[in-house]
């Protein structure tokens, strides 16, 4: 174990050395960023050290899946925020603000408001009922095999889609920032993530998240303060400068074309809110704390950190409008020659990165680049752990094994193999999707989470009449509807398949697919008159008592 980590660290140093070699050829495009590479190596060495420490403490399946249930509410809140503040939200939302101003805030708010509702209605019940995965809760009184299969399928689909987006983002980011070839970057991310998860399990993943969250919040805070200090900490002065600099002028201060019609607006709102409550890697975090009290605290802290972070990205986006948009240093001359306008190097999602250079020079650019990379690493680790748990705990231990006695050591081994397999799949898909339009990927992940995972989970806790048949049929219908509507929608059908008009006119299917799921679950449950259904309904009361009081709930392990 120790040896392996040493080898990997050595490998990373040599990769960095190679990077400095390959960059020379095209130095006019991307100067070698020594500070970025050094800071990244420090982060990787530090987190591998943590993985080594965590590996010694990860002995049982409970340690592996939930860090022994001994994470505090504050730590878990940090880690949830770390999971949620992905590179997609840091670079994507600041890029969106940079491009369209106010529209970025609409997304941020949608991503945030799901959290309090998760706290009020879901978090403590989840903690009281669950063990390792959200399927534990959904399948609590229903038939294990079909429910877990559906939940695992929804989890794995969400995880893989999310992984594709992160891998492609990582590859491009590293290519641009460090000058590493795309494939090398993707492989590097894949290997590191496999190491964190297989050796350190949830404990290492949690600490990687916490460290990354602290780094990201400090970096973003510094950037926002730097921008604000430019304008004597007057928001009005900052907005005035941005309105003057942006080609859309005053229009950036109000909702623009991003959400153009009522259906899209509502549908996006549903996808963001219910999707958050159906993301397997987020739900899994509720099992890492000792009890309902800590679970509540986690969400409270997470909401605070995430809300604060979104306010920062808003300021960062506006800062970029002022300091990056018309700055010839960041202009992509080649692109400008073809399309005109003032495109920036690497596209709009690099706005925050360029801004870090504008406010803090090369050193700070290095810091933010390393943080962005660390962010991706942390998020893919959390995702992979969730995916691997769905495979080992839900599919292997409870479906293939038919709920019989499972050797814990064997289940953990399966989980580690699953991690390696997911890592390899992520690398392959990351490379395969390099030149593809992946704009639909995160949207689809949220749509599936909102339409398959969330309705089943929610009704299993709140509706006594839910039966296995209803959950499986309704959940599958929701899943199928979400996938189909995304394929027939404007992004895939028109932009990717090149058809003239979309068969389904809206970008976000959640309004329809979530409705289909809920109606489907309701209909197939109330018409279910089987003996089994009667039994399942009768079990609701005992489940409800446990979910309300925590009687019989999983506690923290003693060590």
């Amino acid at each position, binding site marked *: 174990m120790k040896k392996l980590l040493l080898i990997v660290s050595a490998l990373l140093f040599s990769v960095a050395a190679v990077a400095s070699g390959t960059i020379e050829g095209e130095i006019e495009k991307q100067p070698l960023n020594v500070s970025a590479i050094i800071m990244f190596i420090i982060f990787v060495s530090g987190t591998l050290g943590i993985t080594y420490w965590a590996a010694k403490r990860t002995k049982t399946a409970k340690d592996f899946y939930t860090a022994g249930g001994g994470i505090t509410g504050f730590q878990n809140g940090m880690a949830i925020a770390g999971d949620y503040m992905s590179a997609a939200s840091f670079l994507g939302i600041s890029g969106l603000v940079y491009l369209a101003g*106010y529209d970025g*805030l*609409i997304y*941020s*708010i*949608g991503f*945030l*408001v799901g*959290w*309090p*509702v998760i*706290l*009020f*209605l879901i978090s*403590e019940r989840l903690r009281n009922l669950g063990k390792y995965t959200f399927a534990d809760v959904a399948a609590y009184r229903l038939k294990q095999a079909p429910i877990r299969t559906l939940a695992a399928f929804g989890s794995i689909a969400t995880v893989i889609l999310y992984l594709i987006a992160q891998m492609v983002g990582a590859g491009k980011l590293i290519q641009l920032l460090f000058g590493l070839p795309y494939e090398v970057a993707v492989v590097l991310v894949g290997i590191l993530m496999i190491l964190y998860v297989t050796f350190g399990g949830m404990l290492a993943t949690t600490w990687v998240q916490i460290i990354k969250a602290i780094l990201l919040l400090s970096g973003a805070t510094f950037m926002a303060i730097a921008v604000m200090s430019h304008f004597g900490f007057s*928001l*009005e002065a900052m*907005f*005035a400068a941005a*309105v003057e600099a942006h080609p859309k002028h*005053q*229009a950036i*201060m*109000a*909702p*623009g074309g991003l*959400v153009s*019609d*009522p*259906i*899209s*607006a*509502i549908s*996006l*709102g549903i996808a963001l*809110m219910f999707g958050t409550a159906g993301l397997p890697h987020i739900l899994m975090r509720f099992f890492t704390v000792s009890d*309902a*009290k800590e679970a*509540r*605290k986690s*969400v*409270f802290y997470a*909401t*605070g950190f995430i*809300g604060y972070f*979104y*306010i920062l990205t808003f300021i960062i986006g506006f800062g970029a409008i002022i300091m990056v948009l018309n700055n010839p240093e960041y202009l992509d001359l080649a692109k400008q020659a073809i399309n005109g306008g003032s495109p920036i190097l690497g596209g709009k999602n690099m706005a925050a990165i360029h801004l870090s250079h504008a406010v803090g020079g090369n050193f700070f650019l290095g810091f933010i680049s390393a943080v962005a990379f660390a962010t991706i690493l942390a998020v893919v680790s959390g995702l992979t752990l969730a995916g691997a748990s769905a495979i080992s705990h839900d599919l292997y231990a409870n479906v293939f094994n038919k709920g019989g006695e499972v050797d814990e050591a064997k289940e953990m081994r399966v989980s580690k193999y699953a991690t390696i397999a997911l890592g390899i799949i992520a690398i392959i898909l990351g490379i395969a999707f390099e030149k593809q339009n992946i704009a639909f990927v995160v949207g689809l992940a949220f749509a599936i989470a909102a339409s398959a995972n969330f309705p089943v989970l929610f009704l299993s806790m709140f509706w006594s009449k839910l039966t296995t048949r209803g959950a499986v049929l309704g959940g599958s219908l929701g899943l199928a509807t979400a996938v189909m509507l995304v394929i027939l929608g404007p992004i895939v059908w028109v932009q990717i398949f090149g058809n003239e008009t979309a068969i389904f006119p809206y970008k976000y299917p959640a309004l329809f697919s979530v409705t289909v799921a809920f109606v489907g679950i309701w209909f197939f449950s109330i018409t279910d008159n089987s003996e089994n259904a009667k039994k399942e309904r009768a079990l609701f*009361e*005992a489940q409800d*008592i446990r979910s*309300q*009081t*925590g*009687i*019989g709930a999983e506690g923290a392990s003693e060590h």
Partner: protein
Amino acid sequence: MTQEQIEQVKNNPKYQKLVTERSKFAWTLSIIMLVVYYAFIMIIAFDPSFLGTKMGDGVMTIGIPIGIVIIFIAFILAGIYVKRANGEFDQLTKEVREELGDIA
């Protein structure tokens, strides 16, 4: 848990109080959050220019403070819930578990 035990828990007055009050509180707060958020979404959907209304002579529009306030509301509501749940409701849960003795 046997049917008899279930009845015993359900008939415990403190358990009833816990369940009713907590769900009333949780749903009220959820509805406040949903109403705030979907009101915002409806404005974007049906009257986006409202959020572009200028607040003074400068460039500041009414949409900016509204957006920021929604972020604060989310955080404050979370705080209100955690304060009551980790105090009053947890105390009540503890008492319920003590009263139930061997079931819990």
